[in-house]
Protein backbone atom coordinates (compact mmCIF):
# COMPACT_ATOMS: atom_id res chain seq x y z
CA UNK A 1 0.00 0.00 0.00
CA UNK A 2 1.23 3.44 -1.00
CA UNK A 3 0.69 5.19 2.32
CA UNK A 4 2.50 2.54 4.23
CA UNK A 5 5.45 2.49 1.85
CA UNK A 6 5.79 6.28 2.06
CA UNK A 7 5.98 5.99 5.81
CA UNK A 8 8.37 3.07 5.84
CA UNK A 9 10.72 4.80 3.38
CA UNK A 10 10.93 7.75 5.74
CA UNK A 11 11.58 5.35 8.59
CA UNK A 12 14.30 3.48 6.73
CA UNK A 13 16.07 6.63 5.59
CA UNK A 14 16.71 7.50 9.22
CA UNK A 15 18.28 4.16 10.00
CA UNK A 16 21.45 5.29 8.20
CA UNK A 17 22.07 7.93 10.81
CA UNK A 18 21.50 5.84 13.91
CA UNK A 19 25.03 6.52 15.16
CA UNK A 20 24.67 10.28 15.01
CA UNK A 21 21.19 10.02 16.49
CA UNK A 22 22.47 8.18 19.51
CA UNK A 23 24.72 11.15 20.20
CA UNK A 24 21.65 13.31 19.80
CA UNK A 25 19.87 11.17 22.36
CA UNK A 26 22.62 11.86 24.86
CA UNK A 27 22.09 15.59 24.35
CA UNK A 28 18.33 15.24 24.57
CA UNK A 29 18.53 13.14 27.71
CA UNK A 30 20.85 15.73 29.18
CA UNK A 31 18.25 18.45 28.58
CA UNK A 32 15.67 16.48 30.55
CA UNK A 33 18.25 15.84 33.24
CA UNK A 34 18.91 19.57 33.55
CA UNK A 35 15.22 20.28 33.98
CA UNK A 36 14.92 17.52 36.55
CA UNK A 37 17.85 19.04 38.45
CA UNK A 38 16.10 22.40 38.50
CA UNK A 39 12.96 20.82 39.98
CA UNK A 40 15.01 18.93 42.52
CA UNK A 41 16.58 22.26 43.50
CA UNK A 42 13.22 23.97 43.78
CA UNK A 43 11.70 21.06 45.67
CA UNK A 44 14.64 21.03 48.05
CA UNK A 45 12.78 22.64 50.88
CA UNK A 46 9.19 22.87 49.76
CA UNK A 47 6.55 20.41 48.51
CA UNK A 48 5.72 20.41 44.81
CA UNK A 49 1.93 20.20 44.86
CA UNK A 50 0.30 16.87 44.21
CA UNK A 51 3.40 15.59 42.40
CA UNK A 52 6.11 15.85 45.02
CA UNK A 53 9.76 15.92 43.97
CA UNK A 54 9.82 12.36 42.70
CA UNK A 55 6.54 12.87 40.86
CA UNK A 56 7.91 16.00 39.17
CA UNK A 57 10.96 14.07 38.03
CA UNK A 58 8.67 11.45 36.54
CA UNK A 59 6.68 14.24 34.91
CA UNK A 60 9.77 15.84 33.33
CA UNK A 61 11.13 12.46 32.23
CA UNK A 62 7.90 11.63 30.44
CA UNK A 63 7.48 14.98 28.69
CA UNK A 64 11.12 15.03 27.59
CA UNK A 65 10.83 11.57 26.03
CA UNK A 66 7.45 12.41 24.47
CA UNK A 67 8.89 15.49 22.77
CA UNK A 68 10.33 13.19 20.10
CA UNK A 69 6.83 12.11 19.18
CA UNK A 70 4.90 15.33 19.55
CA UNK A 71 7.42 18.14 19.39
CA UNK A 72 10.35 17.38 17.11
CA UNK A 73 8.43 17.16 13.87
CA UNK A 74 10.14 18.02 10.57
CA UNK A 75 10.02 21.79 10.13
CA UNK A 76 6.79 22.50 8.23
CA UNK A 77 6.76 18.82 7.15
CA UNK A 78 9.48 19.72 4.66
CA UNK A 79 7.18 22.03 2.70
CA UNK A 80 9.40 25.14 3.05
CA UNK A 81 12.25 23.15 1.52
CA UNK A 82 9.97 21.98 -1.28
CA UNK A 83 8.88 25.55 -1.94
CA UNK A 84 12.48 26.73 -2.17
CA UNK A 85 13.48 24.03 -4.62
CA UNK A 86 10.25 24.19 -6.59
CA UNK A 87 9.49 20.57 -5.73
CA UNK A 88 6.12 21.70 -4.39
CA UNK A 89 4.55 21.93 -7.87
CA UNK A 90 5.56 18.33 -8.51
CA UNK A 91 4.13 17.22 -5.19
CA UNK A 92 0.85 18.91 -6.00
CA UNK A 93 0.72 17.14 -9.37
CA UNK A 94 0.81 13.69 -7.83
CA UNK A 95 -2.40 11.71 -7.62
CA UNK A 96 -2.19 11.79 -3.82
CA UNK A 97 -3.54 14.57 -1.67
CA UNK A 98 -0.67 16.84 -0.55
CA UNK A 99 -1.70 16.62 3.10
CA UNK A 100 -1.82 12.83 3.01
CA UNK A 101 1.52 12.69 1.22
CA UNK A 102 3.27 14.86 3.78
CA UNK A 103 1.52 13.16 6.66
CA UNK A 104 2.54 9.64 5.65
CA UNK A 105 6.17 10.64 5.37
CA UNK A 106 5.99 12.19 8.80
CA UNK A 107 4.39 9.13 10.41
CA UNK A 108 7.42 7.13 9.33
CA UNK A 109 9.67 9.73 10.88
CA UNK A 110 7.68 9.70 14.11
CA UNK A 111 7.69 5.91 14.30
CA UNK A 112 11.47 5.98 13.98
CA UNK A 113 11.84 8.65 16.62
CA UNK A 114 9.54 6.77 18.98
CA UNK A 115 11.62 3.61 18.76
CA UNK A 116 15.12 5.08 18.56
CA UNK A 117 14.69 8.20 20.66
CA UNK A 118 11.69 8.27 22.97
CA UNK A 119 12.09 4.71 24.22
CA UNK A 120 15.84 4.72 24.91
CA UNK A 121 15.66 8.13 26.57
CA UNK A 122 12.78 7.05 28.80
CA UNK A 123 14.49 3.79 29.65
CA UNK A 124 17.56 5.74 30.68
CA UNK A 125 15.48 7.94 32.95
CA UNK A 126 13.73 4.89 34.42
CA UNK A 127 17.07 3.53 35.52
CA UNK A 128 18.55 6.87 36.51
CA UNK A 129 15.60 8.18 38.50
CA UNK A 130 14.16 4.79 39.56
CA UNK A 131 10.82 5.41 37.87
CA UNK A 132 8.17 2.73 37.69
CA UNK A 133 5.66 1.86 34.97
CA UNK A 134 1.91 2.38 35.45
CA UNK A 135 0.31 -0.56 37.21
CA UNK A 136 -2.67 -1.01 34.91
CA UNK A 137 -2.34 -1.86 31.22
CA UNK A 138 -5.31 0.35 30.27
CA UNK A 139 -3.28 3.35 31.42
CA UNK A 140 -0.59 2.45 28.90
CA UNK A 141 -3.22 2.01 26.20
CA UNK A 142 -4.83 5.40 26.86
CA UNK A 143 -1.42 7.03 26.99
CA UNK A 144 -0.57 5.53 23.63
CA UNK A 145 -3.81 6.82 22.10
CA UNK A 146 -3.23 10.26 23.61
CA UNK A 147 0.31 10.37 22.20
CA UNK A 148 -0.86 9.26 18.78
CA UNK A 149 -3.48 12.02 18.80
CA UNK A 150 -0.90 14.61 19.83
CA UNK A 151 1.49 13.42 17.13
CA UNK A 152 -1.33 13.85 14.62
CA UNK A 153 -2.09 17.35 15.89
CA UNK A 154 1.58 18.26 15.62
CA UNK A 155 1.65 17.01 12.05
CA UNK A 156 -1.35 19.20 11.24
CA UNK A 157 0.19 22.26 12.91
CA UNK A 158 3.41 21.80 10.98
CA UNK A 159 1.51 21.31 7.76
CA UNK A 160 -0.08 24.71 8.27
CA UNK A 161 3.27 26.24 9.20
CA UNK A 162 4.81 24.73 6.08
CA UNK A 163 2.02 26.17 3.95
CA UNK A 164 2.84 29.70 5.10
CA UNK A 165 6.23 29.41 3.44
CA UNK A 166 4.46 30.12 0.17
CA UNK A 167 3.79 33.62 1.43
CA UNK A 168 6.77 34.52 3.59
CA UNK A 169 10.43 33.53 3.68
CA UNK A 170 10.33 33.73 7.47
CA UNK A 171 8.08 30.73 8.03
CA UNK A 172 11.02 29.17 9.84
CA UNK A 173 10.26 31.48 12.70
CA UNK A 174 6.73 30.15 13.02
CA UNK A 175 8.17 26.71 13.56
CA UNK A 176 10.28 28.00 16.41
CA UNK A 177 7.46 30.06 17.85
CA UNK A 178 5.26 26.99 17.82
CA UNK A 179 8.04 25.24 19.63
CA UNK A 180 8.42 27.95 22.24
CA UNK A 181 4.66 28.16 22.81
CA UNK A 182 4.58 24.44 23.23
CA UNK A 183 7.31 24.65 25.86
CA UNK A 184 5.32 27.25 27.73
CA UNK A 185 1.69 26.26 27.25
CA UNK A 186 1.80 22.49 26.79
CA UNK A 187 3.09 21.88 30.28
CA UNK A 188 6.51 20.81 29.07
CA UNK A 189 8.47 22.20 31.98
CA UNK A 190 5.73 23.60 34.22
CA UNK A 191 2.47 21.70 34.70
CA UNK A 192 -0.35 23.85 33.30
CA UNK A 193 -2.07 24.30 36.67
CA UNK A 194 0.95 26.22 37.99
CA UNK A 195 0.81 28.86 35.28
CA UNK A 196 -0.66 32.25 36.27
CA UNK A 197 -4.42 32.05 35.87
CA UNK A 198 -4.57 34.23 32.74
CA UNK A 199 -1.98 32.04 31.08
CA UNK A 200 -3.91 28.94 32.11
CA UNK A 201 -6.96 30.33 30.34
CA UNK A 202 -4.91 30.99 27.21
CA UNK A 203 -3.44 27.52 27.43
CA UNK A 204 -6.76 25.71 27.69
CA UNK A 205 -8.16 27.70 24.77
CA UNK A 206 -5.28 26.39 22.66
CA UNK A 207 -4.60 22.79 21.61
CA UNK A 208 -1.23 22.81 23.37
CA UNK A 209 -2.19 21.05 26.63
CA UNK A 210 -3.32 18.07 24.57
CA UNK A 211 0.15 17.74 23.07
CA UNK A 212 2.04 16.95 26.28
CA UNK A 213 0.18 17.78 29.46
CA UNK A 214 -2.82 15.52 28.94
CA UNK A 215 -0.86 12.43 27.78
CA UNK A 216 1.55 12.87 30.69
CA UNK A 217 -1.27 13.23 33.22
CA UNK A 218 -2.95 10.12 31.83
CA UNK A 219 0.31 8.23 32.06
CA UNK A 220 0.91 9.33 35.62
CA UNK A 221 -2.63 8.32 36.55
CA UNK A 222 -3.99 11.77 37.39
CA UNK A 223 -6.39 11.86 34.47
CA UNK A 224 -8.96 9.40 33.11
CA UNK A 225 -9.73 8.32 29.56
CA UNK A 226 -12.41 11.04 29.38
CA UNK A 227 -9.82 13.68 28.54
CA UNK A 228 -9.16 11.89 25.26
CA UNK A 229 -12.39 13.46 24.00
CA UNK A 230 -10.65 16.83 24.00
CA UNK A 231 -7.83 15.39 21.90
CA UNK A 232 -10.38 13.94 19.49
CA UNK A 233 -12.16 17.27 19.08
CA UNK A 234 -8.90 19.06 18.28
CA UNK A 235 -7.92 16.31 15.80
CA UNK A 236 -11.15 16.77 13.90
CA UNK A 237 -10.79 20.53 13.91
CA UNK A 238 -7.22 20.33 12.59
CA UNK A 239 -8.13 17.84 9.87
CA UNK A 240 -10.74 20.22 8.49
CA UNK A 241 -8.32 23.15 8.74
CA UNK A 242 -5.63 21.26 6.84
CA UNK A 243 -8.00 20.34 4.05
CA UNK A 244 -8.96 23.98 3.76
CA UNK A 245 -5.32 25.07 3.72
CA UNK A 246 -4.58 22.61 0.92
CA UNK A 247 -7.22 24.24 -1.26
CA UNK A 248 -5.67 27.65 -0.67
CA UNK A 249 -2.16 26.31 -1.32
CA UNK A 250 -3.27 24.71 -4.55
CA UNK A 251 -4.80 27.95 -5.74
CA UNK A 252 -1.68 29.91 -4.80
CA UNK A 253 0.66 27.54 -6.64
CA UNK A 254 -1.57 27.43 -9.70
CA UNK A 255 -1.70 31.20 -9.90
CA UNK A 256 2.00 31.74 -9.28
CA UNK A 257 3.44 28.62 -10.77
CA UNK A 258 5.31 27.80 -7.57
Amino acid sequence: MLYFSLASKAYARNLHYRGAHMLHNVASALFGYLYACIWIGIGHDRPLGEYGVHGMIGYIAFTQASLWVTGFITNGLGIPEAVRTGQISLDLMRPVHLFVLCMCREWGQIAYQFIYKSLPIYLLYMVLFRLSLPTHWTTLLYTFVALAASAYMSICMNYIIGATSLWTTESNWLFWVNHALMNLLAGFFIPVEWLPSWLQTVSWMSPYPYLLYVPTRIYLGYEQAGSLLGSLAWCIFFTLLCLLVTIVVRRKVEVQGG
Partner: protein
Amino acid sequence: MKNTLPMIEVSGLHKQFRTPVVKEGRFAGIRTLFTREYRMKEAVKDISFSIQKGDFVGYIGPNGAGKSTTIKMLTGILHPSSGEVKINGINPHKHRRQVAKRLGVVFGQRSQLWWDLPVKDSYDILAHMYKVAPDEKEKRQGEMGELLDLKEFWLTPVRKLSLGQRMRADIAASMLHDPDVLFLDEPTIGLDVTAKRSIRGFLKKLNSEFGKTILLTTHDMDDIEQLCERVMVINHGQLSYEGTIENLRDKIGLPTLIRVTFHGTYQLPAPQDQCLPVELGLDAERTFQIVDAGSHEVHIEANRQQVKAMDILRMVSGWGEVADIHMEEPDFEDVIHRVY
Protein backbone atom coordinates in the same frame (compact mmCIF):
# COMPACT_ATOMS: atom_id res chain seq x y z
CA MET B 1 52.80 40.14 -25.55
CA LYS B 2 53.92 36.70 -24.60
CA ASN B 3 57.05 36.19 -22.61
CA THR B 4 58.80 33.04 -21.63
CA LEU B 5 57.94 32.90 -17.91
CA PRO B 6 55.16 30.35 -17.48
CA MET B 7 52.04 31.64 -15.73
CA ILE B 8 51.06 28.26 -14.40
CA GLU B 9 53.60 25.55 -13.84
CA VAL B 10 52.70 22.11 -12.58
CA SER B 11 55.15 19.33 -11.99
CA GLY B 12 54.59 15.77 -10.88
CA LEU B 13 51.23 16.44 -9.27
CA HIS B 14 49.66 13.59 -7.29
CA LYS B 15 46.54 13.48 -5.19
CA GLN B 16 45.25 10.61 -3.14
CA PHE B 17 41.93 10.66 -1.30
CA ARG B 18 41.08 8.69 1.77
CA THR B 19 37.50 7.59 1.73
CA PRO B 20 36.11 5.91 4.82
CA VAL B 21 34.81 2.40 4.23
CA VAL B 22 31.10 2.28 4.95
CA LYS B 23 30.23 -0.49 7.34
CA GLU B 24 27.19 -2.68 7.28
CA GLY B 25 25.30 -4.37 10.01
CA ARG B 26 24.22 -3.62 13.53
CA PHE B 27 25.47 -0.43 15.21
CA ALA B 28 27.24 0.37 11.95
CA GLY B 29 26.73 4.06 12.55
CA ILE B 30 28.43 3.99 15.92
CA ARG B 31 31.27 1.82 14.74
CA THR B 32 32.11 4.17 11.88
CA LEU B 33 32.28 6.98 14.41
CA PHE B 34 35.01 5.32 16.37
CA THR B 35 37.05 3.16 14.05
CA ARG B 36 38.87 4.21 10.96
CA GLU B 37 39.15 2.13 7.90
CA TYR B 38 39.98 3.84 4.70
CA ARG B 39 40.30 3.04 1.08
CA MET B 40 42.86 5.03 -0.88
CA LYS B 41 41.79 6.45 -4.18
CA GLU B 42 44.22 8.03 -6.56
CA ALA B 43 42.45 10.94 -8.18
CA VAL B 44 45.41 12.55 -9.91
CA LYS B 45 48.55 10.74 -10.99
CA ASP B 46 51.74 12.49 -11.99
CA ILE B 47 50.44 15.44 -13.94
CA SER B 48 52.84 18.03 -15.31
CA PHE B 49 52.24 20.91 -17.65
CA SER B 50 52.91 24.59 -18.03
CA ILE B 51 50.77 27.40 -19.34
CA GLN B 52 52.19 30.65 -20.69
CA LYS B 53 50.87 34.09 -20.01
CA GLY B 54 47.95 34.91 -22.30
CA ASP B 55 47.14 31.29 -23.13
CA PHE B 56 43.59 30.05 -23.32
CA VAL B 57 43.68 26.38 -22.44
CA GLY B 58 40.88 23.85 -22.27
CA TYR B 59 41.03 21.10 -19.70
CA ILE B 60 38.75 18.23 -20.54
CA GLY B 61 38.02 14.71 -19.48
CA PRO B 62 35.11 12.47 -18.56
CA ASN B 63 33.30 12.72 -15.23
CA GLY B 64 35.46 11.64 -12.33
CA ALA B 65 38.68 11.84 -14.32
CA GLY B 66 40.29 14.28 -11.88
CA LYS B 67 39.56 17.63 -13.53
CA SER B 68 38.05 19.34 -10.53
CA THR B 69 40.68 17.88 -8.24
CA THR B 70 43.40 19.40 -10.42
CA ILE B 71 41.68 22.77 -10.49
CA LYS B 72 41.27 22.68 -6.72
CA MET B 73 44.98 22.00 -6.34
CA LEU B 74 45.88 24.81 -8.73
CA THR B 75 43.77 27.28 -6.79
CA GLY B 76 45.16 26.21 -3.42
CA ILE B 77 41.93 24.65 -2.15
CA LEU B 78 43.39 21.16 -1.89
CA HIS B 79 46.90 20.25 -0.92
CA PRO B 80 48.57 17.84 -3.34
CA SER B 81 49.86 14.55 -1.96
CA SER B 82 53.07 15.29 -3.83
CA GLY B 83 54.28 17.47 -6.65
CA GLU B 84 54.33 21.21 -6.99
CA VAL B 85 52.20 24.00 -8.37
CA LYS B 86 53.45 27.46 -9.17
CA ILE B 87 51.22 30.32 -10.19
CA ASN B 88 53.31 33.16 -11.55
CA GLY B 89 56.24 31.67 -9.68
CA ILE B 90 54.45 31.41 -6.31
CA ASN B 91 53.28 28.23 -4.61
CA PRO B 92 49.56 28.52 -3.77
CA HIS B 93 49.85 26.03 -0.92
CA LYS B 94 52.56 27.91 0.88
CA HIS B 95 51.26 31.39 0.09
CA ARG B 96 47.56 30.82 -0.50
CA ARG B 97 46.42 34.36 0.21
CA GLN B 98 49.10 35.96 -1.91
CA VAL B 99 48.19 33.77 -4.87
CA ALA B 100 44.44 34.19 -4.28
CA LYS B 101 44.80 37.91 -4.86
CA ARG B 102 45.96 37.28 -8.41
CA LEU B 103 43.40 34.59 -9.21
CA GLY B 104 39.84 34.68 -10.42
CA VAL B 105 37.92 31.47 -9.86
CA VAL B 106 34.45 30.64 -11.15
CA PHE B 107 32.64 27.41 -10.32
CA GLY B 108 29.68 26.93 -12.62
CA GLN B 109 27.87 24.82 -10.07
CA ARG B 110 27.92 27.31 -7.23
CA SER B 111 28.09 31.01 -6.83
CA GLN B 112 30.66 33.14 -5.08
CA LEU B 113 28.09 35.88 -4.62
CA TRP B 114 26.02 36.43 -1.50
CA TRP B 115 22.75 34.63 -2.03
CA ASP B 116 20.42 37.11 -0.37
CA LEU B 117 22.15 40.31 -1.37
CA PRO B 118 21.76 42.33 -4.55
CA VAL B 119 24.55 41.82 -7.10
CA LYS B 120 25.87 45.30 -6.40
CA ASP B 121 26.29 44.60 -2.67
CA SER B 122 28.23 41.44 -3.36
CA TYR B 123 30.63 43.48 -5.48
CA ASP B 124 31.03 46.02 -2.69
CA ILE B 125 31.99 43.27 -0.26
CA LEU B 126 34.37 41.63 -2.72
CA ALA B 127 36.01 44.95 -3.52
CA HIS B 128 36.70 45.45 0.16
CA MET B 129 37.93 41.93 0.57
CA TYR B 130 40.38 42.20 -2.34
CA LYS B 131 41.27 45.79 -1.40
CA VAL B 132 40.24 47.25 -4.72
CA ALA B 133 40.38 51.04 -4.66
CA PRO B 134 36.94 52.67 -5.09
CA ASP B 135 37.70 54.46 -8.36
CA GLU B 136 39.30 51.36 -9.79
CA LYS B 137 36.29 49.30 -8.74
CA GLU B 138 33.87 51.76 -10.37
CA LYS B 139 35.86 51.69 -13.58
CA ARG B 140 36.04 47.92 -13.78
CA GLN B 141 32.46 47.49 -12.68
CA GLY B 142 31.40 49.84 -15.47
CA GLU B 143 33.48 47.95 -18.04
CA MET B 144 32.21 44.56 -17.02
CA GLY B 145 28.66 45.81 -16.64
CA GLU B 146 28.78 47.08 -20.19
CA LEU B 147 30.29 43.93 -21.67
CA LEU B 148 28.05 41.52 -19.78
CA ASP B 149 24.89 43.60 -19.66
CA LEU B 150 24.60 43.52 -15.89
CA LYS B 151 22.62 46.72 -15.52
CA GLU B 152 19.19 45.13 -15.81
CA PHE B 153 19.63 43.00 -12.68
CA TRP B 154 22.05 45.18 -10.80
CA LEU B 155 19.83 45.48 -7.74
CA THR B 156 18.26 42.03 -7.81
CA PRO B 157 19.16 39.56 -5.07
CA VAL B 158 21.33 36.79 -6.46
CA ARG B 159 18.87 34.02 -5.58
CA LYS B 160 16.34 35.58 -7.96
CA LEU B 161 18.67 35.65 -10.99
CA SER B 162 18.32 33.21 -13.85
CA LEU B 163 21.20 30.79 -14.29
CA GLY B 164 22.58 32.77 -17.23
CA GLN B 165 22.40 36.07 -15.37
CA ARG B 166 24.01 34.54 -12.31
CA MET B 167 26.87 33.19 -14.39
CA ARG B 168 27.49 36.57 -15.98
CA ALA B 169 27.43 38.22 -12.56
CA ASP B 170 29.79 35.57 -11.22
CA ILE B 171 32.35 35.97 -13.98
CA ALA B 172 32.27 39.74 -13.68
CA ALA B 173 32.76 39.35 -9.91
CA SER B 174 35.86 37.26 -10.46
CA MET B 175 37.29 40.05 -12.64
CA LEU B 176 36.73 42.79 -10.10
CA HIS B 177 40.24 42.59 -8.67
CA ASP B 178 41.82 42.34 -12.11
CA PRO B 179 43.41 38.90 -11.69
CA ASP B 180 46.14 37.60 -14.00
CA VAL B 181 44.75 34.10 -14.19
CA LEU B 182 41.17 32.92 -14.50
CA PHE B 183 40.07 29.40 -13.60
CA LEU B 184 36.66 28.48 -14.92
CA ASP B 185 35.08 25.21 -13.86
CA GLU B 186 32.19 24.44 -16.23
CA PRO B 187 31.02 28.01 -16.67
CA THR B 188 28.44 27.14 -19.34
CA ILE B 189 26.82 24.22 -17.56
CA GLY B 190 23.05 24.25 -17.88
CA LEU B 191 22.92 27.45 -19.92
CA ASP B 192 20.85 28.00 -23.06
CA VAL B 193 22.41 28.74 -26.45
CA THR B 194 22.15 32.50 -26.16
CA ALA B 195 23.63 32.64 -22.69
CA LYS B 196 26.45 30.33 -23.74
CA ARG B 197 27.23 32.51 -26.70
CA SER B 198 27.33 35.65 -24.61
CA ILE B 199 29.66 34.06 -22.07
CA ARG B 200 31.95 32.69 -24.75
CA GLY B 201 32.16 36.09 -26.42
CA PHE B 202 33.10 37.63 -23.12
CA LEU B 203 35.74 35.06 -22.30
CA LYS B 204 37.27 35.48 -25.71
CA LYS B 205 37.51 39.21 -25.14
CA LEU B 206 39.05 38.74 -21.70
CA ASN B 207 41.74 36.62 -23.28
CA SER B 208 42.48 38.56 -26.44
CA GLU B 209 41.92 42.17 -25.33
CA PHE B 210 42.70 42.05 -21.62
CA GLY B 211 45.44 39.43 -21.98
CA LYS B 212 44.12 37.16 -19.22
CA THR B 213 45.46 33.66 -18.92
CA ILE B 214 42.48 31.31 -18.81
CA LEU B 215 42.11 27.65 -17.90
CA LEU B 216 38.70 26.27 -18.69
CA THR B 217 37.14 22.94 -17.85
CA THR B 218 33.94 22.01 -19.57
CA HIS B 219 31.91 19.18 -21.01
CA ASP B 220 30.74 21.34 -23.86
CA MET B 221 33.04 20.65 -26.82
CA ASP B 222 31.78 23.77 -28.59
CA ASP B 223 33.30 25.82 -25.76
CA ILE B 224 36.63 24.16 -26.38
CA GLU B 225 36.47 24.40 -30.14
CA GLN B 226 35.51 28.05 -30.19
CA LEU B 227 37.71 29.32 -27.40
CA CYS B 228 40.81 27.30 -26.74
CA GLU B 229 44.10 27.28 -28.59
CA ARG B 230 45.23 24.31 -26.64
CA VAL B 231 43.61 21.39 -24.91
CA MET B 232 44.71 19.01 -22.21
CA VAL B 233 42.83 15.77 -21.87
CA ILE B 234 42.81 13.99 -18.53
CA ASN B 235 41.59 10.46 -18.05
CA HIS B 236 41.87 8.20 -15.02
CA GLY B 237 43.91 10.90 -13.33
CA GLN B 238 46.54 11.11 -16.07
CA LEU B 239 47.11 13.48 -18.93
CA SER B 240 46.42 11.56 -22.10
CA TYR B 241 46.85 14.40 -24.55
CA GLU B 242 48.25 17.89 -24.60
CA GLY B 243 48.44 20.11 -27.66
CA THR B 244 46.42 22.04 -30.20
CA ILE B 245 42.95 21.03 -31.27
CA GLU B 246 44.09 20.45 -34.87
CA ASN B 247 46.80 18.09 -33.75
CA LEU B 248 44.34 16.24 -31.59
CA ARG B 249 42.01 15.85 -34.52
CA ASP B 250 44.81 14.63 -36.73
CA LYS B 251 46.16 12.30 -34.13
CA ILE B 252 42.86 10.56 -33.76
CA GLY B 253 42.49 10.63 -37.52
CA LEU B 254 38.76 10.44 -37.86
CA PRO B 255 37.85 10.40 -41.56
CA THR B 256 36.39 13.34 -43.39
CA LEU B 257 33.14 12.54 -45.15
CA ILE B 258 33.04 13.71 -48.78
CA ARG B 259 29.78 13.76 -50.71
CA VAL B 260 30.17 14.11 -54.48
CA THR B 261 27.16 14.79 -56.70
CA PHE B 262 27.49 14.19 -60.46
CA HIS B 263 25.62 15.63 -63.44
CA GLY B 264 24.17 12.59 -65.11
CA THR B 265 25.90 9.26 -64.84
CA TYR B 266 29.37 8.52 -63.60
CA GLN B 267 31.74 5.62 -63.85
CA LEU B 268 33.41 4.18 -60.75
CA PRO B 269 36.75 2.57 -61.32
CA ALA B 270 36.74 -1.17 -60.87
CA PRO B 271 37.90 -2.20 -57.36
CA GLN B 272 41.10 -3.76 -58.59
CA ASP B 273 42.27 -0.62 -60.34
CA GLN B 274 41.40 1.83 -57.59
CA CYS B 275 44.49 3.53 -58.72
CA LEU B 276 44.84 6.55 -56.49
CA PRO B 277 45.96 5.15 -53.13
CA VAL B 278 48.35 2.89 -54.89
CA GLU B 279 49.66 5.81 -56.85
CA LEU B 280 50.27 7.67 -53.64
CA GLY B 281 51.77 4.62 -52.08
CA LEU B 282 49.26 4.39 -49.23
CA ASP B 283 47.29 1.72 -47.51
CA ALA B 284 43.93 1.79 -49.26
CA GLU B 285 41.98 0.40 -46.34
CA ARG B 286 42.78 3.19 -43.91
CA THR B 287 42.87 6.25 -46.07
CA PHE B 288 40.18 6.09 -48.65
CA GLN B 289 36.92 4.28 -48.93
CA ILE B 290 33.75 4.48 -50.98
CA VAL B 291 31.03 3.92 -48.43
CA ASP B 292 27.92 4.52 -50.52
CA ALA B 293 27.22 4.90 -54.24
CA GLY B 294 23.79 6.09 -55.46
CA SER B 295 22.58 7.00 -58.91
CA HIS B 296 24.04 10.51 -58.82
CA GLU B 297 25.91 10.61 -55.59
CA VAL B 298 29.00 8.97 -54.07
CA HIS B 299 29.99 9.08 -50.39
CA ILE B 300 33.68 8.79 -49.70
CA GLU B 301 35.52 8.64 -46.40
CA ALA B 302 39.08 9.85 -46.44
CA ASN B 303 41.70 10.57 -43.85
CA ARG B 304 42.74 14.09 -44.70
CA GLN B 305 46.05 13.80 -43.01
CA GLN B 306 47.16 11.23 -45.52
CA VAL B 307 45.25 12.19 -48.63
CA LYS B 308 45.19 15.77 -49.82
CA ALA B 309 41.79 17.16 -50.74
CA MET B 310 43.11 18.25 -54.11
CA ASP B 311 44.17 14.71 -54.97
CA ILE B 312 40.73 13.42 -54.18
CA LEU B 313 39.13 16.12 -56.29
CA ARG B 314 41.38 15.34 -59.21
CA MET B 315 40.51 11.67 -59.01
CA VAL B 316 36.80 12.18 -58.59
CA SER B 317 36.53 14.49 -61.58
CA GLY B 318 37.83 11.63 -63.68
CA TRP B 319 34.72 9.59 -62.86
CA GLY B 320 32.16 11.95 -64.38
CA GLU B 321 30.99 15.56 -64.47
CA VAL B 322 31.04 16.81 -60.89
CA ALA B 323 28.08 19.03 -59.93
CA ASP B 324 28.80 19.64 -56.27
CA ILE B 325 31.18 18.57 -53.54
CA HIS B 326 30.46 18.71 -49.85
CA MET B 327 33.02 17.99 -47.18
CA GLU B 328 32.14 17.27 -43.59
CA GLU B 329 34.86 17.59 -41.01
CA PRO B 330 34.69 14.99 -38.25
CA ASP B 331 32.59 16.13 -35.31
CA PHE B 332 34.81 17.29 -32.46
CA GLU B 333 32.74 15.48 -29.93
CA ASP B 334 33.41 12.24 -31.77
CA VAL B 335 37.10 13.02 -31.68
CA ILE B 336 37.04 13.52 -27.95
CA HIS B 337 35.02 10.40 -27.49
CA ARG B 338 37.87 8.50 -29.11
CA VAL B 339 40.39 9.97 -26.70
CA TYR B 340 38.44 9.09 -23.56
